[in-house]
């Protein structure tokens, strides 16, 4: 995707110069390999320096980058035999959430060939796609479709993989009318009762209740440059400082990065992204997620339905320590 973030510019600039030198090399037949090598070294160093100290706001921008893999990219890269299953059986099919049954293809792991139910938010990569996908903001119908598929997985004993990437549940009149709050709440409760392994991966924006409605897993993982928050930084800034432009400040205050969430116990692991971020190397990112899924699915394979449910309960029960007055 041709979207360059502000802090990526110096790196991208170096790459462009390398590209120019390469073209020159081709057309003029002169050897510029030592200059190219030097520039490449500099570009890599610069990239490493910038990416080793990303601010929470910069990570938020990365998490929203339209070049990041979405659920259908993970399906394409990690699974075969995908059948998309549509509809909430109540009159709607929400295209901001896709789901279906597929077979994991993770050669050399214990879960290769395993049938799974996969569900996730799907964003678009351009305006047209985004209008179709409603920017990954689901209405109640999307959450009800997801619940229907989770119940199917539960009944048949299939593991559930969810891919979370949403600015939030859709705040619209029709969404409220059809019970957005109830749909999210129902999913959260029902997910806590599932008797199959559930792995939730926050792969982009973990936007509040709309994210948690797919997020009650035995394992909750985050990609390195994804974020998970109770409110968008801009929304928080609008409330606290009456200014959406204070988003960067709110992003820092809210502790929304993967490292923060790991420290707070909200997630169980961070999935590393390739140098320069997921959007620079989609296939590598997808493979990285595949390795994490194999590892965590494997670690849950010894647990029966009751144990899986109990483990999930205890996991969420412990989140949010409080003090007691004497």
């Amino acid at each position, binding site marked *: 995707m041709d979207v360059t973030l502000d802090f990526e510019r110096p790196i991208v600039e170096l790459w462009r110069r390398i590209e120019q030198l390469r073209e020159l090399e081709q057309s003029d037949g002169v050897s510029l390999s030592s200059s190219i090598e030097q520039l490449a070294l500099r570009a890599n160093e610069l990239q490493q320096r910038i990416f080793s100290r990303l601010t929470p706001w910069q990570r938020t921008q990365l998490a929203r980058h339209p070049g990041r893999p979405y659920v259908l990219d993970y399906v394409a890269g990690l699974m075969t035999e995908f059948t998309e299953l549509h509809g909430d059986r109540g009159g709607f099919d929400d295209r901001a959430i896709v789901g279906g049954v597929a077979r994991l293809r993770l050669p050399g792991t214990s879960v290769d060939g395993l049938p799974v139910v996969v569900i996730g938010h799907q964003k678009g990569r351009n305006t047209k796609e985004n209008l179709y996908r409603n920017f990954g903001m689901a209405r109640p119908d999307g959450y009800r479709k997801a619940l229907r598929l989770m119940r199917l997985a539960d009944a048949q004993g299939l593991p559930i993989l969810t891919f979370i990437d949403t600015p939030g549940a859709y705040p619209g009149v029709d969404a409220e009318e059809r*019970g957005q709050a109830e749909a999210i709440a129902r999913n959260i409760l029902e997910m806590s009762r599932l008797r199959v392994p559930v792995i939730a991966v926050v792969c982009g924006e973990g936007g509040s209740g709309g994210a948690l409605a797919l997020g*009650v897993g035995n394992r909750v993982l985050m990609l390195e440059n994804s974020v998970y928050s*109770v409110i968008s930084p801009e929304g928080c800034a609008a409330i606290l400082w009456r200014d959406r432009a204070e988003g960067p400040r709110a992003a820092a205050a809210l*502790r*929304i990065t993967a490292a923060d969430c790991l420290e*707070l116990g909200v997630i169980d692991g961070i999935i590393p992204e390739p140098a320069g971020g997921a959007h620079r190397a989609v296939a590598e990112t997808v493979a990285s997620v595949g390795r994490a899924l194999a590892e965590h699915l494997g670690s849950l394979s010894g647990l029966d339905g009751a144990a899986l449910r109990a483990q999930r309960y205890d996991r969420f029960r412990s989140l*949010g320590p409080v003090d007691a*007055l004497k």
Partner: protein
Amino acid sequence: MAGKRWFERPDAMAVPSRESAADPATPEFYTRCPSCTELLYDEALREAIKVCGRCGHHFPLEPELRLLSLCDVGTLVEHDGHLVARDLLGFFDSKPYKARLASSQKAIGRSDAFYSASGAVWGVPVEVGCFDFRFMGGSMGAVVGESITRLYERATERKVPAIVVSASGGARMQEGVLSLMQMARTCAALGRLRDEAGMPYVSVLTHPTTGGVAASFAMLGDIILAEPRSLIGFAGPRVIKETIGQALPEGFQTSEYLLDHGMIDAIVERSALRSTIGRLLRQLLGLPALPDEGRTTGTPAPVREAGSA
């Protein structure tokens, strides 16, 4: 399970009585109804559990009065009032979260925004709790989440119904993503109440119930009752208006609107909540009807109408 009986607490009813102290046209000890502008004598307003005698406007109700109005006299035993929040994020906006907590605690005399108790309604033992909207907008952080989770767990253990009265703007931003997790924590405990105790849960929605509270246990009642004209919804009206860029429908996100759209069971005036819940719980649990419709409740003293304690 040991807690203080409310009536033994000298400060139990020591809540600020002035509703509109800043209004110079409102005399001392009186409150003006924001709906019909009637001047209401504070003591009488409390006797009427904060409902305007002229137009039926429901004022915000303090948790002490709320639970007294719902439960049989002498049955309430408070729980978890000793829980206090940690500032795990080191959150700071115009002032530190710790300072915000401290000023709310001082002003209201409670450690956080939720009040829970064991009690009985029409002789049916229940675990009951309610929000205090005055405490940081009734927002749900870890203390509120933990208190509600414990409420459901106590109900599961004792095999009694649960009642939660909501009034909240949603999750507490100052506790970040951990406040979001309280939605899962509470809902999971509610799931156990159903799976392990098979006991009903009554959710009462009052003005306002939005955000992460609406999108978790508040909308999951086996029975969902709402006070009239309460704002109830997931996203706030301002956010929706900004998103869609047009005016919202008449009465959008009110109790009446939710009833029309099949989202709640009934709208019940505050003065009828106790009898409605009592009657329903006795029916759902297969208990005999009370001969005098719950005016006495197994306690020797006759119970006066709500709010008279």
